[in-house]
């Protein structure tokens, strides 16, 4: 085939994407070397001063980063376990199968921030239903949003509610595409459901699982919307994630230069760590 045609297909998309992205990325790098803030809103050059500040004098960023890692890893593990369980349950025949499938999919179709607005009223400490119902059981009101430790778990609950469906969808689509023969063989050998899962289903699902986990980790590493509405990073900085911290530095305090430094460092860490996680996961799950 004439090799010119292939560029006609590829280039529009590629160049639009590069065209939109190239400026912001170069600009971020350049901005990160400047002291642009609300007093001196100009592109001066201050070398790596911002980077020195980040690595020696900004524990808040690193705390927010570890918090983000904790939140995203925890939510993704929970989503994977629950999503896999749900997918297994509605995979084969079960009463009202299609009804349950729709129900399990619904949360991912709803806008996270808008649902979080509802969750806020849901977890309201004196007027919300959760504390009221728990109160009926004799439990003291729980400070869902204003206790530093519990607020993290509230964020996790909301994130798990929101995104388990995505995991469920990817895993169920995977389960439905599995070949039938291994299961027949296992049935002939009289394997118990548990052994069937461990020796047949799980290994067959490993590549799909890895894909799903990586996709979810990528999306979860951007946790921001939920936190923004639910707790605004509070109480104090208890639920502040990296994105949220950069947002505060850049677009609330207008330390654009420093925020660009944070952004760029954050992006590099993200790319490196997600690549490593992808490699490690692939090794772990394929071996089994």
């Amino acid at each position, binding site marked *: 085939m004439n090799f010119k045609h292939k560029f006609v297909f*590829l280039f529009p998309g590629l160049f639009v994407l590069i065209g*939109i*992205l190239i400026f912001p990325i170069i600009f971020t790098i350049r901005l990160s070397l400047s002291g642009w803030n609300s007093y001196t809103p100009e592109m001066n050059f201050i070398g790596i001063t911002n980077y020195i500040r980040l690595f020696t004098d900004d524990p808040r960023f690193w705390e927010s980063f570890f918090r983000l890692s904790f939140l995203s890893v925890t939510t993704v593990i929970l989503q994977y376990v629950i999503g896999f369980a749900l997918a297994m*349950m509605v995979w084969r025949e079960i009463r009202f199968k299609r009804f349950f499938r729709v*129900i399990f*999919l619904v949360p991912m179709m709803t806008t996270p921030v808008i649902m979080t607005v509802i969750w806020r009223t849901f977890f309201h400490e004196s007027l919300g239903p959760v504390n009221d119902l728990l109160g009926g059981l004799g439990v003291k009101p729980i400070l869902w949003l204003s206790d530093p430790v519990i607020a993290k778990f509230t964020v996790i609950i909301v994130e798990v509610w929101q995104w388990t469906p995505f995991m469920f969808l990817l895993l169920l689509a*995977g389960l*439905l595409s599995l070949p039938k023969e291994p299961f027949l063989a296992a049935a002939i050998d009289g394997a118990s459901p548990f052994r069937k899962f461990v020796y047949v289903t799980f290994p067959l699902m490993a590549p799909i699982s890895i894909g799903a986990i990586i996709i979810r980790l990528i999306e979860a590493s951007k946790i921001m919307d939920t936190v923004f509405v639910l707790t605004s990073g509070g109480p104090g900085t208890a639920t502040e994630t990296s994105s949220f911290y950069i947002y505060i530095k850049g677009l609330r305090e207008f330390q654009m230069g420093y925020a660009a430094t944070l952004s760029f460092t954050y992006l590099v860490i993200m790319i490196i760590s997600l690549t490593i996680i992808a490699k490690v996961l692939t090794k772990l799950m394929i071996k089994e």
Partner: protein
Amino acid sequence: MSKLYTFLKYFFITFWTVFVVAPFLWAVSTSFKDFQSVNSKVTYIPWLDFEPTLEGWRVLIKSPAKGGVDIVEPYFNSIFVTCTASLISIVLGTLAAYALSRFTFKAGFVRNNDITFFFISQRIMPPIVLSIPFFIFLSTIGLLDSLLGLVVVYIVLLMPIAVWIMVDFFNRVPKELDETALIDGCNPYQAFYKVVLPNSIPGLIVAGMFCIIFGWIDFFFAFILTFTEVQLLPVKVVALNSSITPWWSLSASALVSVAPLIIVAFIVERYLSKGNLSGALK
């Protein structure tokens, strides 16, 4: 053993269903409440616990001057931005995906997989990293606070999804299909347009649904890149949340905003059950 398993299974399914539905039920119930039934004590069931009113729903259609919440315009803005950006992403993404699936590219150490990875890896980009330069960039060219500016940004969000789904899909469409078309005298564009595309409708629908979902639910870019001229739905509802909007109209607006995409859940389920999605999503 198997009885215990069945019990656990139904217990878990019931539990999860209740968990999924709970916030919706709460919002529906709240949307019919008045001041008394929200603020005195927690109430649940209309008529039994409290006397329902339609006040929360009425403010949706009132003009802002009369105390309405004015979500009609943001609604149409959201629909416009989501659909336009999805459409552009799907068209460009599908073309690129077809090229990556059918032809081989070589440029230095760059191969097809690297280009595909470049497209998909744009999802790794945290929105905050792009938002600051976009903020300055769009204000320089005068597109800050405009629909067009948002569409441009949303293409970055959505094209990776379109490419991701369509590359996989095209890899599954047999190559013989386009080869036959070429032998029959089509040029590559006709082969793509007349033969491959009509056979890719399921993939296109899945890609389209995902683009619409991820466009519709995005909040962050709309929040940073628009102010007063243009407001998208999520931004509007969050703005209501931080003002003194009472819970009943807040719940009603939230419900109206999330309602349209719930239909997508039904479409996705149909595709799952027919087995079309399995190929398109793996």
